[in-house]
């Protein structure tokens, strides 16, 4: 097994958890209701927990004495491998929910496959994650329905959200950072196999929510290659602030 490609692979998964967890963390105390605030914080907490498990394992694999925090806080922008979807800003609650649902649906399909990984640690992290992400997906899916099929205003807003986030969904299946060797060894998940089910599930829910499914063209890619959005640098400057300002300290 090639250590480097496994390390990279773990980051292509975990960076999504970190960045989405960070985005949700911005919302704490500012949600439309106490209940949604609690749910958002809870999802963020689960994602940060998963991030830690993945990074701890990545640090072990690499064997250079790095910690989970070195990986989380001390990389350059282009070295983060999360997809563009999860770094999109919290413009309003509809975007938070839309982003969450489009991610959760993918991530649950992904973890369901990853639990069969021949790598025992990845399989164990996936099994634990499935329980959490099933709840996240139920929460976000229910809210897509409420907002899509709620009031006239919420319907229009939610359609705008779906249209706005749609260009980012195909990158979820982009195989950048997943080596063929890892798939052959049964360690990594072949993302192309998830695409059809994903679009089927998402389309069904959007239709239930009386929302139109946008056409499948004009997709945008980049995050997995380290080419991020303009929003990303600002997200990182918050995330990395303490570690950059006070280097080499224990917290």
């Amino acid at each position, binding site marked *: 097994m090639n250590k480097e490609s496994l390390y990279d692979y773990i980051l292509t998964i975990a960076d999504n958890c970190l960045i989405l967890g960070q985005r949700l963390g911005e919302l704490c105390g500012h949600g439309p209701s106490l209940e949604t605030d609690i749910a958002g914080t*809870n999802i963020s907490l689960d994602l*940060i927990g998963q991030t830690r498990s993945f990074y701890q394992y990545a640090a072990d694999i690499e064997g250079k004495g790095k910690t989970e925090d070195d990986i989380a806080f001390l990389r350059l922008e282009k070295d983060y491998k999360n997809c563009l979807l999860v770094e999109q800003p919290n413009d309003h609650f509809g975007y938070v929910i839309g982003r969450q649902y489009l991610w959760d649906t993918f991530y649950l399909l992904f973890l369901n496959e990853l639990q069969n990984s021949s790598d025992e640690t990845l399989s164990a992290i996936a099994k634990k994650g499935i329980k959490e992400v099933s709840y996240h997906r139920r929460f976000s899916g229910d809210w897509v329905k409420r907002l899509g099929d709620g*009031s006239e205003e*919420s319907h229009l807003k939610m359609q705008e959200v779906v249209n706005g986030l749609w260009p980012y969904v195909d990158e979820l299946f982009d195989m950048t950072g997943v080596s063929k060797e890892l798939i052959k060894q049964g360690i990594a998940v072949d993302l192309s196999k998830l695409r059809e089910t994903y679009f089927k599930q998402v389309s069904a829910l959007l239709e239930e929510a009386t929302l139109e499914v946008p056409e499948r063209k004009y997709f945008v890619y980049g995050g997995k290659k380290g080419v991020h959005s303009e929003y990303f640098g600002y997200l990182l400057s918050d995330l990395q602030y303490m570690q950059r300002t006070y280097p080499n*300290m*224990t917290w």
Partner: protein
Amino acid sequence: MSEKEIKNLEEIFEARIARDEKIEPKDWMPEKYRKTHIRQISQHAHSEIVGMLPEGNWITRAPSLRRKAALLAKVQDEAGHGLYLYSACETLGISREEMYEQLHTGKAKYSSIFNYPTLTWADMGAIGWLVDGAAIINQVPLCNTSYGPYARAMIRVCKEESFHQRQGFESLLTLCKGTPDQKNMAQDALNRWWWPSLMMFGPTDDESTHTEQSMKWKLKRKTNDELRQQFVDQTVPQAEILGITIPDPDLKWNEERGHYDFGKINWDEFWQVVKGHGPCNKQRIKDRVSAWEKGAWVRDAAIAYAEKQEKRNQEERKAS
């Protein structure tokens, strides 16, 4: 009901409290008891919710993943406290919307401590150690208060607050054992949070208006000054463990009293903040109002969706 009958009910009611029986939502209670409890419980709930803001301010900048997760969990706990305190308050016949309205218009108060800004990471530790520490001293006696739903909510709140307090202390201890920069950060946080924490116990006993009645209803077991003294006595040795200095030149052990003497609190500052002119009063309320107003379309959508669902269910029932 005649005056005599009411007086009779009141006597029975007071006797129940004296016997340590719990008053439950459906029991008869004097109007003043209901109003006092609505005021205190809603104020407590608002404090939890407004208290999420100064701590939420550091979630995105927490210095490690472990601290980020712990802070998220802590703020989530506070939202949970708010939720069951609002629920306890609703049992007294006020809606959550009415309570929010009172908060947003300034009619209802919340703990003044949250009108101070969180300026460094060490403030997260200081809030846990001092603010949650003071809150516990205020709140532990409430686990035995006379109103059942409030007492039960407080048992859970106190358990979690006590965990937060230890966590805050541990976080500061890490800073104090760290580099000089980290220790300075901890000292600076103590300098800023010490006096506002002492103010959390409210005005001195001779200025406190609600104490006597509250004692009878077990909303209070000790006076403001007694609780404040307990806090100082408990906290001074902890500051010594941390190795940072409490910003009070008059602080010293009084052998005769068996307590620490401490300096004069700046009551002008206290009243200024209570009256809405602290460093963050306007910002905190603006944030709450903004979250509420920006969320209106979401709440309306949820109601509209629920109504549609109900209608669909009815139609299905008719058809079958």
